């Protein structure tokens, strides 16, 4: 029954409520005052919006969304994909606001060609998430590289660690995928689930964001009696987004997925804690003679250098160093750069580690604890030589940043907008995907009990779930960064001992691998 019809029905029944009539009559009048404006609003909506769809019997205006995702990067798209993949949340009107032209793509990216230097190492936990939301099969049609082995050592030559997926009974430790492939796969899955996603994507920038200021709990009966239309009342409770193409959107929930310099976070007034590392990272793609099937990481005095397989004979280099050095390396000739990379991975800065008698002793000592990991017995290997650098070298500064709050009323932050970590363990985007999965689940739980999913008490559950895990990871990585940035004799030996421990103490090694793979939520003692 429409409100006006209901009002008149109530009036006609007015005779039958003698006992409560002295409470009801004024109410009925108030109710009657409202309907004409409600009716006008309804009529206005009906005539002006030809393309408004009927959603469950109620007219849904095209400028009203349930969830507005600001930022169409990997994590933003993952949130959208996860929501459209669950029965409970499929029907929600989701919009993605990002002016990146890559969001127009509707095809697989070609496998030939030079791999992009912006890649991510996705952990098995992330791969399961992608499988669940149906995006992994699209990744498999595009370039990607699984790796089952990893070697970590440093410049002192005092120790090394080799990890293998077989240590924990798995087939792979992770998969290296270009960021554009991840984005494209999520986009293709969205397209599959939603038909035409043109309506979902707003290829513009967000200019301003206004959160509802007054709380709904204050009775706005004054508002009702002073003739506010239902539409105005309704909009006063939503977030208002103004876009650069002049559109104005209203949404029940805004998801801030716009990266570490998040405007959404700034507008909401959420503070962060963090510091800049005195380091920048250089990334590029290099080529080898044969395929690389192992992930290599060497800690150097100024920062770690990592060599990650990306597929075919290519590898991705992530080299962390001081900002001045990174500028120098960015501008030197490609041949010099290749020499520099090979040097850094080989004899540069220090000797190769070798197994000494202490190592044999440790191996024997700890072989009784649990089952020995297969990689314990593996010897140190020198990484494959790079024969040329095939992509542009990019440099960017590194920092740690963590938001004090992940949520506020009608807002949730995910991915780098909530937390930025050091790239030394390739964990950053995996934390973001963890956020996306957790947020989607919390929203689904909210829908299942008919809650208003912009309500902060619901969103707090997402924050409680993710914050602790993200802070722990950020702290671990920060710890590593700090420990490895000091060249000090006794500390070097301590680090070496740690390497040895990680190499020869199998339960510890398995624990480290599981944590890095995303199988366990907490490092150690889980």
């Amino acid at each position: 029954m429409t409100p006006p019809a209901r009002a008149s029905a109530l009036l006609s029944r007015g005779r039958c409520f003698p006992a409560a009539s002295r409470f009801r009559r004024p109410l009925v009048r108030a109710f009657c005052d409202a309907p004409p404006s409600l009716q006008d609003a309804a009529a206005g909506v009906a005539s002006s919006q030809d393309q408004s769809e009927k959603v469950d019997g109620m007219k849904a205006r095209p400028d009203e969304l349930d969830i507005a995702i600001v930022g169409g990067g990997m994590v933003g798209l993952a949130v959208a994909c996860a929501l459209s993949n669950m029965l409970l949340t499929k029907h929600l009107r989701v919009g993605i606001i990002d002016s990146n032209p890559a969001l127009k793509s509707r095809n697989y990216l070609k496998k030939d060609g030079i791999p992009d230097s912006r890649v991510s190492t996705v952990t098995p936990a992330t791969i399961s998430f992608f499988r669940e939301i149906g995006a992994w099969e699209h990744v498999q049609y595009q370039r990607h590289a699984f790796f089952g082995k990893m070697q970590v050592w440093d410049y002192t030559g005092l120790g090394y660690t080799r990890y293998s997926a077989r240590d924990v009974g798995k087939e792979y430790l992770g998969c290296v995928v270009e960021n554009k492939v991840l984005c494209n796969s999520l986009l293709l899955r969205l397209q599959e689930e939603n038909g035409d996603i043109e309506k979902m994507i707003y290829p513009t920038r967000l200019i301003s964001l206004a959160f509802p200021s007054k709380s709904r709990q204050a009775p706005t009966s004054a508002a009702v009696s002073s003739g506010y239309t239902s539409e105005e009342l309704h909009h006063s409770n939503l977030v208002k987004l103004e876009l650069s193409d002049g559109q104005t959107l209203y949404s029940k929930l805004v998801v801030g997925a716009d990266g570490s310099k998040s405007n959404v976070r700034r507008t909401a007034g959420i503070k962060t804690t963090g510091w800049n590392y005195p380091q920048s990272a250089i990334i590029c793609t290099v080529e080898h003679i044969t395929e690389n099937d192992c992930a290599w990481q060497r800690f150097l005095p100024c920062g770690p250098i990592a060599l990650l397989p990306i597929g075919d004979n290519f590898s991705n280099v992530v080299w962390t160093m001081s900002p001045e050095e990174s500028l120098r390396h960015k501008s030197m000739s490609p041949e010099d750069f290749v020499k520099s990379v090979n040097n850094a991975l080989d004899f540069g800065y220090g000797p190769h580690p070798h197994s000494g008698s202490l190592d044999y002793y440790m191996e024997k000592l700890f072989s009784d604890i649990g089952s020995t990991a297969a990689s314990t017995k593996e010897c140190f290997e020198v990484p494959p030589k790079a024969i040329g650098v095939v992509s542009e070298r990019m440099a960017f500064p590194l920092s740690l940043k963590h938001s004090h709050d992940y949520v506020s009323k009608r807002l949730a932050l995910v991915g780098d907008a909530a937390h930025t970590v050091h790239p030394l363990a390739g964990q950053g985007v995996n934390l973001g995907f963890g956020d996306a999965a957790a947020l989607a689940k919390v929203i689904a739980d909210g829908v299942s009990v008919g809650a208003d999913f912009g309500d902060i008490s619901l969103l707090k559950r997402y924050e409680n779930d993710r914050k602790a895990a993200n802070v722990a990871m950020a702290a671990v990585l920060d710890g590593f960064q700090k420990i490895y940035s000091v060249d000090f004799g006794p500390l070097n030996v301590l680090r070496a001992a740690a390497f040895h421990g990680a190499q020869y103490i199998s339960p510890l090694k398995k624990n480290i691998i599981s944590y890095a793979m995303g199988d366990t939520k907490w490092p150690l003692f889980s």
Partner: protein
Amino acid sequence: MLRRLGPSLRRALLTSSSAVPGCGGVQLTEPGLLPLHALPPQWRLCSSAASSNSPPPPPPHPSPSQGPKRSADGSTVSSLNPAEVAKFAAIAETWWDSEGPFKPLHVMNPTRLSFIRSTLCRHFRRDPNSSKPLEGLKVIDVGCGGGILAEPLARMGATVTGIDAVDKNIKIARVHAASDSSTASIEYVCTTAEDLVKEHKQFDAVISLEVIEHVANPLGFCESLSALTVPNGATVISTINRSMRAYATAIVAAEYILNWVSLCPSCIFWPHPLRYILSCVVHWVGEKCHSFMASFLEPFR
């Protein structure tokens, strides 16, 4: 004894005696706890449906008393307690403040809704994975207060009517519901269950949570709720026991007072007082009940 109960039951603490206030002198006895094997299978099934993380319930529940006393000649007289009405009216603004005096209700709400959703889906054979499983059902929330329960039910697709005897609550509820298009269709009326019965109104599901403890005549109240339910409909009642030992409180949700099937009283294993009341109702109104399910929702862990 508690150890022999299932794990979820084990943590639900049955309160000991508490007379329902204003019960008019009805004596409620304290049955002992019964071993798990004596419980009907529905109870065991249902007990796994509920667990909640909410903190201890609070002080007085905010719904006003609703039921009329039955006078000797059988005619009903409305017995709203003006003092109670005034007390609740005074804090009506804080209904929707999730950190205010109604905080425990807000915290408990998802659990209650999850329970109601799963049981109504089962009863009306709806798909529990649907986003609007209660579509097409006429539901009434008796003692709706500010609409904390009515709004989520509307979002789940039900056609909701909310009634309350405190006018201020109805006003607050209307304004709050109007600001969200998914809840703007809720019909709020300031009236009583008995009045609606006189109108011969009927609903597919009649829900009255945390009201019965305020009612002067719980038996009459249950009778009214039953009369408001269509045949093969569902009635859901819950109450929090407010005894001194309420720190270890269990919420008992009595479910499914349907209109047929005979019930053997000795087969009902209820924590009282609700069980006692319901068994009296069942006998008195001469109706047959299809199935009883009890569930203990532990409001905190």
